[in-house]
């Protein structure tokens, strides 16, 4: 497949060819001056659709919480819930103990993903590795105040800092980020 025929490009071309049929538009020709660059016809449409259905794979790493496991020896599977959705994973027997040990934990998982035809959504991720993500230990405000040596203020002047250059510009920048 040509280098630039990414899943997104293939999807775009499939859409472009969507109206081609024997009863309707039979071909679309792209002509510049006297030169015909490209013809989209039923044959191309058919090839593109076949290509679109082919499996796109990509090595990816995801971070999410490990939920649900199916330890059927014929098909070891689990589900990792990420911020952008749930991802179904499968794995080999050597990862079984690792997966069991990380249940309900925040994990980082790497493997080869079979992507949907949109080139983005993951149909299934074949796991190569999985590890625990060390999450920050939540501390109470009392603990944080003690650690940072912060005390109740008697007056807001205690919080006064040195003058900075161009404070109004600084505020404008800060607000622009919201």
């Amino acid at each position, binding site marked *: 497949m040509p280098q630039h025929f990414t899943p997104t490009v293939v999807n775009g071309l499939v859409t472009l060819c969507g109206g081609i049929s024997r009863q309707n538009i039979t071909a679309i020709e792209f002509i510049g001056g006297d030169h015909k660059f490209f013809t989209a016809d039923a044959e191309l449409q058919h090839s593109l659709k076949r290509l679109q259905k082919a499996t796109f794979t990509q090595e990816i790493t995801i971070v999410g919480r490990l939920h649900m496991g199916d330890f059927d020896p014929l098909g070891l599977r689990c589900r990792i819930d990420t911020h952008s959705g749930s991802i179904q994973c499968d794995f080999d027997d050597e990862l079984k103990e690792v997966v069991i040990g990380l249940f309900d934990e925040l994990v980082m998982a790497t493997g080869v993903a079979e992507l949907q035809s949109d080139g983005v959504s993951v149909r299934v991720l074949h796991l190569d590795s999985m590890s625990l993500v060390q999450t920050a230990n939540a501390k109470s405000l009392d603990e944080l*105040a003690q650690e940072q040596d912060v005390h109740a203020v008697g*007056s807001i002047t205690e919080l*006064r800092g040195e003058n900075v250059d161009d404070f109004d510009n600084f505020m404008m920048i800060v607000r622009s*980020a919201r």
Partner: protein
Amino acid sequence: MPSYVIVDTDVFSYIWQGRPEATQFEPALRNKIPVLSHTSVAEVYFGASYAGWGERN
């Protein structure tokens, strides 16, 4: 038992620079421990970075 007040980025900035707008927040902060959220800290870093401030600021 100490009590805490979450101070937003604008209020923190006014207080930090001693701007007149800060005075209206004085009663809410007196004898309280002020708290900045991660969001405010990030906004202040962003503002300082984008404005090209040096180490002193």
